[in-house]
């Protein structure tokens, strides 16, 4: 097993642990049925309420807390931070 795969394995394990503890975690929307979406968390699928998002589409990544998607995950806007660290 390559180092990268091992790292990925560890990341998935960490995320699964977080899932068990119901903390906010990222997942991918697989399908949407009205207010509920099926969201994939590294292989585990769960029904998630998406009423708190103004729009959500299949394929998007969301942060989920206590059974509800609370925000979509977008590309990092890290330029400010990188500038500050220089």
């Amino acid at each position, binding site marked *: 097993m390559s180092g990268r795969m091992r790292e990925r394995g560890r990341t998935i394990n960490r995320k699964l642990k*977080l899932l068990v*503890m*119901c*903390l*906010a975690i990222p997942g991918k929307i697989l399908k949407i049925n009205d207010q*509920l979406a099926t969201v994939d968390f590294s292989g585990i699928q769960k*029904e998630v*309420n998406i*009423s*708190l*998002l*103004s729009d959500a589409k299949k394929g998007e990544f969301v*942060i989920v*807390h*206590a*059974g*509800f998607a*609370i*925000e979509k*995950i*977008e*590309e*990092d*806007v*890290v330029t*400010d*931070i990188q500038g*500050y*660290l220089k």
Partner: protein
Amino acid sequence: MMKNIIEKINKLAEEIGRNINLMEVCGTHTQVISRYGIREILPKNIKLITGPGCPVCVTAQRDIDAIVNLALAGVPMATYGDALRVPGFFGSLNEAREKGAQVFDVYSVTEAVELQKKIPDLVFFGLGFETTTPMTAWGIQQGLTVYSAHKVFLPAMAALLQDKNINIDGFIDPGHVSVVIGTAPYDKLKIPQVITGFEMEDVLTGILLLLKQIKNKDTRVLNQYSRVVKESGNEKIQKIISDVFEIGDGEWRGFGVIPKSGLKIRKKYASFDAKVKYKNILDKVDFSHSKDPAGCRCGEVIRGLMESKKCPLFGKVCTPDNPVGPCMVSVEGACNVAYRYSK
């Protein structure tokens, strides 16, 4: 990359040359910091303190005593798992269930709304900050009856800055509260702050950004978690919350009453407010014993005044299997986290 960040932290810590207290106020950060042993990697003069980020922990004993009495009086109650185990003067919700009360453990408000279709008198015990308030507000809009112990987080941070018993040099702001409220509201705290993610590298970068501000005598709110946290937050959630709730005084374990930190259900939703609907039961409850259990230092732990391990009860009479106070009950509680990661 990680080594590089740690080297920069060490260098800045040396340049600053005095003791620095950084506070993290989010249960998830508390866990990440303990899981990766971040406290142990940091230079000696940089101390990480756990603040009031655990919703179950800061819930006032009075609210626990109120809901346990409702359950014992025959009102069916539902709430998140951890809240069932918090011991009050009249016992915990779990103990009320053992005495025959109807008590349900739910993973989400969606489940509580479904459950209410079968049990129309069901009351959901809503607790926590901007991360759990939106779900409760949505539930009330769907017709769910709620006992609200919800709180606004920022006033607690402001109260800590006023507290002369503790000196905080910077905050790692709560990640998912920030998802909801955005970055702008933190500006008024006038202290170095960072909003960061939940991987080890995120937390270390956050610490580095705080140290850099301290050295530069800056007081900014730097957002390292911009893939999720926007400047104005999630405006749809903010609308849902303000449709259902209005600001009132909030009672916190450890702090007592913090003005304008509580969320009351608005009059237009009064028929879904358990405090109105069951006023007759609540008025008869004797709250004179609603204080921390004997010997429990949770109130000081929440405010960062005492490390969990320094509490005389820690790990001896108070363990996750047999918790004396809520800081040992909740998986986000400072004592519970310290216990699990010290093994």
